[in-house]
């Protein structure tokens, strides 16, 4: 009797698996319990074992392809057994099992996040190569190994991307509640059957805010300032950021002696050549980004988009918040042009005169609080961007040069990295380049 080989739930939270490698070939005799294939789950690479004896007659799922739990991936049967009916039922099974999850069509390469394309430097990843699944939740420590709790109303996994740009699965009531409350269903984690968004998810999403608010102080202690639209947008965007984005931070310090000399020389050449430290830093970051497309990238849920052009967002403080106008093609512009544009955009931002196409479309961002005397800080990633560089104050600091303590102009900059896109070493190499350019500013000109 034939045994269907199906994608099994190899971890309690696994919904789909990527078949990394078939260990058995078609025609191989297999015994119950023998390893058939290696499957990458949301956590690790696991072994898929035979549930019956016989011959591995058919490998339905190809290596590198992904299938939801329950889908037919192969057939074990006697050597002469007719397995046609099992195989013909496979697509149907795939369809029903597919549900909201990504079902790999047999012909398409299925890995959600493709391995580095040839040509791009291979990241010296310190991470295990398990991050190919969509947002891989940290393993929730199950209540008991034998019986994980049924998926109840409090899932902690990040919101999975909704595939194919399709709308998330939701109940009619949930849709009605969400539209009434102005909630975007795409930002709600579903806990219903197959991850469908149901009423309790909408309620959880819309009460999360108020319940977390601090207890009001006595009247008179405070002034209630109503939220402006921009404030609301900031809150929404930043909450979106710190929650589901696994961020880490890298800090680098650069010596600005030569940059200061350059600035000095340019100022001496005439007022029209005057540039700020920030302008030079922006230019250095933009130039480095052009060389590091793996950093100049967006996380798109099911893929990473690396940009060939550098559109640098520049955080500008304004009266009731901040906004990030964009220096388009910042890497291709001359320092003077960039400086002028940065000044213009900042002025427009403060006057609230920016048009939407001036503050959307950035590929990466820079924030600078140096003018406030902040030595170093971390900035929050502006999704779907995968990094932001936070620039501190340019300060004179004692440093050791050739065994002597000397005073040098120094700056510290910290990059927040979305670990789903940027690994430690990748980010470090990028910052090294930024530092090299700031320490040898002629490289920017080159």
């Amino acid at each position, binding site marked *: 009797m034939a045994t269907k080989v199906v994608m099994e*739930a190899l971890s*309690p*939270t*696994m*919904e789909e698996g990527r078949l990394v490698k078939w260990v058995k070939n078609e025609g191989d005799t297999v015994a119950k319990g023998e390893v058939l294939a290696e499957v990458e789950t949301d956590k690790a690479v696991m072994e898929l074992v035979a*549930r019956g004896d016989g011959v591995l007659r058919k490998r339905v799922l190809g290596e590198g392809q992904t299938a939801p*739990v329950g889908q037919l991936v192969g057939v074990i049967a006697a050597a002469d057994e007719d397995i046609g009916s099992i195989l013909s039922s496979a697509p149907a099974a795939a369809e029903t099992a597919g549900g909201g999850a990504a079902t790999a069509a047999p012909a398409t390469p299925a890995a959600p996040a493709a391995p580095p394309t040839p040509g791009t430097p291979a990241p010296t990843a310190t991470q295990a190569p398990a991050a190919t699944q969509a947002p891989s939740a940290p393993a929730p420590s199950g*209540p*008991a190994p*034998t*019986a*994980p*709790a*049924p*998926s*109840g109303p409090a899932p902690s996994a990040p919101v999975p991307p909704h595939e194919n740009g399709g709308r998330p699965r939701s*109940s*009619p*009531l*949930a849709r*009605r*509640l969400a539209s*009434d409350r102005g909630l975007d269903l795409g930002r709600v984690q579903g806990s*219903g*059957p*197959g*991850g469908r968004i*149901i*009423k309790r998810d909408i309620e959880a999403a819309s009460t999360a805010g108020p319940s977390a608010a601090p207890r009001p102080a006595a009247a008179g202690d405070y002034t209630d300032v109503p939220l402006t639209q921009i404030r609301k947008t900031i809150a929404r965007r930043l909450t979106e950021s710190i929650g589901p984005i696994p961020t880490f931070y890298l800090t680098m310090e650069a010596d600005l002696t030569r940059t200061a000399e350059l600035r000095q020389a340019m100022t001496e050449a005439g007022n029209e050549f005057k540039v700020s430290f920030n302008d030079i830093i922006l230019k250095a970051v933009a130039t480095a980004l052009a060389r590091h497309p793996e950093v100049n990238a967006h996380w798109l849920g099911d893929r990473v988009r690396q940009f060939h052009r550098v559109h640098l967002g520049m955080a500008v403080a304004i009266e009731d918040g901040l906004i990030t106008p964009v220096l388009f093609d910042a890497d291709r512009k001359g320092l003077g042009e960039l400086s002028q544009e940065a000044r213009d955009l900042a002025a427009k931002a403060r006057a609230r005169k920016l048009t939407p196409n001036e503050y959307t479309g950035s590929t990466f961002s820079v924030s600078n609080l140096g003018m406030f005397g902040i030595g170093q800080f971390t900035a929050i990633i502006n999704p779907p961007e995968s990094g932001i560089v936070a620039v501190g104050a340019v300060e004179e600091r004692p440093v050791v040069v050739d065994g002597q303590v000397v005073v040098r102009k120094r700056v510290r900059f910290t990059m927040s990295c979305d670990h789903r896109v940027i690994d430690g070493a990748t980010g470090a190499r990028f910052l090294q380049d930024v530092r090299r350019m700031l320490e040898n500013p002629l490289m920017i000109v080159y």
Partner: protein
Amino acid sequence: MASYDVIFLGGGPAGYVGAIRCAQLGMSTAVVEREGLGGTCVLWGCIPAKALLESASLAVHVQHGEAFGVTAGNVKLDYGVAMKRSRAVSQQNSKGVEFLFKKHKITWLKGTGRLAGKKSVAVKNADGKDETHEAKKAIVISTGSRVRGLPQVGLELNKTTVLSSDEVLVLERAPKTMAVIGAGAVGCEFADVFSAFGTQVTLIEVLPSLLPLEDAEVSAELARSFKKRKIDVVTGAKIGSAKVGKDSVTLTIDVKGESKTLTVEKVLVATGRAPNVEDLGLKEAGVQLTERGFIKIDARLATTAEGIYAIGDVAGPPMLAHKGSREGIVFAETLAGLPHVQPVPYGNVPNATYCHPEVASVGFTEQQLKDKNVAYKVGKFPFSANGRARTAGETEGFVKILADPKYGEILGAHIIGAHATELIHELVVARENELTIEEVDLAIHAHPTLSEAIAEATLDAMGRVIHA
């Protein structure tokens, strides 16, 4: 001594369904059951009672056949025959479960089980021999519940005059007079059966209405219908005392301050069931009970002892077969680690009472919404305005839907009338999947059907009913 992944103690609708699901998921499974497979549901509850209710329904129909142009001469009612048929149906169903066990290679351990150490179960078989079996993954207590008397008023079950549902199911003939104490589902169903077989029935309920858990309007409609059928309905009544004789019982009943006496041939005590938690070794195993005497479980259906789970009646109300079955399935799928196992939706368990007219409901009653201070709107449609109900001459009852005034969420649904227990599922599906009254109406309902009354009730809630 044999070893299994999972052993269930009790083969009722919770245990046997859970066992089948475990087997489907590849676990070796055994069920300890001393009587027949199917438990109370198949042998002493749902199934035989419904078989008798079918006889009752037929009896009523035949007697009213003349208006339909069908006159049956010399209609003879014989409860004994109806009873034997109901036993045969039960046996058939029980055999059906045996067949399912064979199909799924589930072992039936015949005997009485108890917990014996951390991962094992001792089974005493008919010869009194004890065998120990190992449960590698889980032990599931699904021992169900049993009938109980009312000793506090002198109504100890005695198998002759003071009976439980177990005994009335095997009566050879319908008594001339009967008092049914407790007007829950069991009480109302047997009042219906015996009334149809010619017994003068007095139905006594301590609370102010029949089917106290149902919506008050539904209870009132049922009381009206029962009274029309000459069932003596006494609500808000307390049993003062009971004198149990050899062939009769005399009850003293206090109704609204007045004392009445009533002498009947049989008393059926239908005031509730007690969970079977005795002699299972629960205490030694560390399995705790709730204040009400049920086994304490969490959302995973796990008891306070590791590796021991409880499902069905013994794990708490509502004591309904379908609730137990669902717990069995959720248990099995959770144990197997299936993704997206939905917890048992305790707030969406349908209630069904198979008396005539039938009563079915899901969700909140109007009173519960008032008590909870939840805003609602009511949509109601009477079967007297439904074409199909008229053709069948069954115009009693109505559909009542309680919906959120803003979003149309179905908060509660109540149906009384012919086939109510079948009709309710449209609204159970809708509610479980969060369809609102609008989606229910959007689906075209065939004409003429009783289900049209549901669509009309949703329309009524939206202020645009067509046929009323």
